[in-house]
């Protein structure tokens, strides 16, 4: 078996070996539902789409994804299994990728379990299912980007709490960069070019277009590149800090 597949399989199974997975999925589903119906005004809008559902995903991921990613490498370091894993005949890349893909798959499973809301909106009206699919795709990509950041920061410490907080802070900054309040404040001081650059770095900017059902290749590419960037950083951090 390919080492990436072997690591992926082991990791994914390990999520479900403890109650963590089930707790995570339940909280994710409850919060996604609550946000959509209460804060998003799903019924009140009177529109057959999932915009109120997707709009809250960045904020949901802000706290839930770091909870998944925090143990990714810090646990290996703490229990010493990092030494086992990295002395098996696998390259650093295979290990980083296998673990990342397993965590991503786990979050995608949680995301896929929100399908009743898709059934609901189809029962109530006649939504654009292409746009909804695009929204799911964008949401999954964004979760991947959050996760890659979390993986890298988790590799930097053996303390899961520190990994969690660092990830939340970094992700929060990346989200805020696209928040209209922040952008207005920046535009008061800096020229439009700077505002666009900051907005261009933000998850919100790229996600909001996808959430509306417009899949621009550039937005998808942004998330893919973010994932690649942070995973490369993750591999470098592990290599640098192996001895600790």
């Amino acid at each position, binding site marked *: 078996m390919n080492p990436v597949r072997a690591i992926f399989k082991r990791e994914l199974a390990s999520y479900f070996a403890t109650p963590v997975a089930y707790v995570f999925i339940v909280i994710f589903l409850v919060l996604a539902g609550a946000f959509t119906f209460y804060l998003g005004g799903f019924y009140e809008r009177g529109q057959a789409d999932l915009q109120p559902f997707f709009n809250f995903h960045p904020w949901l991921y802000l706290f839930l994804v770091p909870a998944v990613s925090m143990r990714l490498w810090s646990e290996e370091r703490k229990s010493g299994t990092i030494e*086992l894993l990295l002395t098996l*005949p696998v390259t650093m890349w295979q290990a980083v990728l296998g673990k990342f893909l397993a965590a991503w798959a786990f979050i995608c499973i949680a995301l896929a379990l929100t399908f009743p809301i898709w059934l609901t909106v189809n029962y109530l009206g006649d939504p654009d299912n292409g746009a909804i699919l695009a929204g799911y795709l964008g949401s999954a990509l964004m979760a991947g980007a959050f996760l890659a950041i979390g993986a890298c920061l988790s590799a930097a410490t053996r303390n899961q709490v520190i990994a969690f907080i660092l990830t939340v802070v970094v992700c929060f900054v990346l989200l805020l960069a696209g928040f209209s309040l922040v952008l207005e404040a920046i535009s008061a001081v800096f020229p439009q070019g700077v505002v666009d650059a900051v907005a261009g770095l933000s998850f919100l900017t790229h996600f909001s277009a996808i959430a509306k059902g417009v899949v621009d290749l550039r937005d998808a590419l942004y998330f893919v590149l973010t994932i690649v960037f942070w995973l490369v950083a993750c591999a470098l951090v592990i290599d640098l800090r192996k001895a600790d």
Partner: protein
Amino acid sequence: MIETQNLSKRYGRIQAVDDVSFRVEPGQVLGFLGPNGAGKSTTMKMIAGFLTPSSGSAKVCGFDVREQSIQARRELGYLSEGAPSYGEMTVWGFLNFIADVRGLQGAQRRERLDDAVGRLQLGGVLMQVIDTLSKGFRRRVGLAQAILHDPRVLILDEPTDGLDPNQKHEVRSLIQSMAAQRTIVISTHILEEVNAVCSRAIIIASGRVLADSTPAELEARSRYHGAVSLTTPEPLAVRDGLLRVEGVAQVEIDAQDGRITAFPRAGQKIFEQVGEFLRSQSVPVSEVQLERGRLDEVFRNITQAAQPAKEAA
């Protein structure tokens, strides 16, 4: 085969491993001895490909651990300190994961799993979660993982640490049974282990190799080598007698159990002379023993002699 050349590892200002060169051939069991923090584990981690050497090189079966890292790791079974494993998995799940990563398939995979499980007697706990196992069993799971792919080179970092005497004996038997065709390096600070399993011992302290020879040669360096110990109800009288025996340099009485030890002059054998003396004087003795040498004493002399030299430098 393992070969290291001028292997060094530096952490900031601390020289953890300093210019270590040695070569271990198949069939040899090399014991790595040294006080805590001597650089044993660091050296092993570099050979296993976990840590990158600051300078120098290491080869496993001819593969450089840096340049041909993956090939080197395929030849290698490694048990790191504390035998870490994924605690939430069952023993069976864990060993299958290792088999997956190592690319074992079909009949060979079944055969290797059976062999590792059999050798370490894990049959009864296969479906148990590793976290629920005793320390001894967890160590065995780690060993099973290390030998699963029938490696030509085994590196075991303190394989018997924390085990009870029976378990220690089992692990030593395992190492001996695997020694014939393989190159094995174990680290330990239990000196009796060196006599029990090692064909060669390297003493390392402050990152440097201080001695590299067979256990017997190390024992011969001991002050006790060739000395004669005996127990008698009249130690004081016997001591004065022994001092007059030819070849005896010194006689000591153990303050705790009153046992008398007669040390020979350099290069002399005194066992027969002492025996002759005891018979001729009709000294009542309850036991007489020829000492082979004491490894713990040699170990102390070698490692402590290195300390002041280091501070001066």
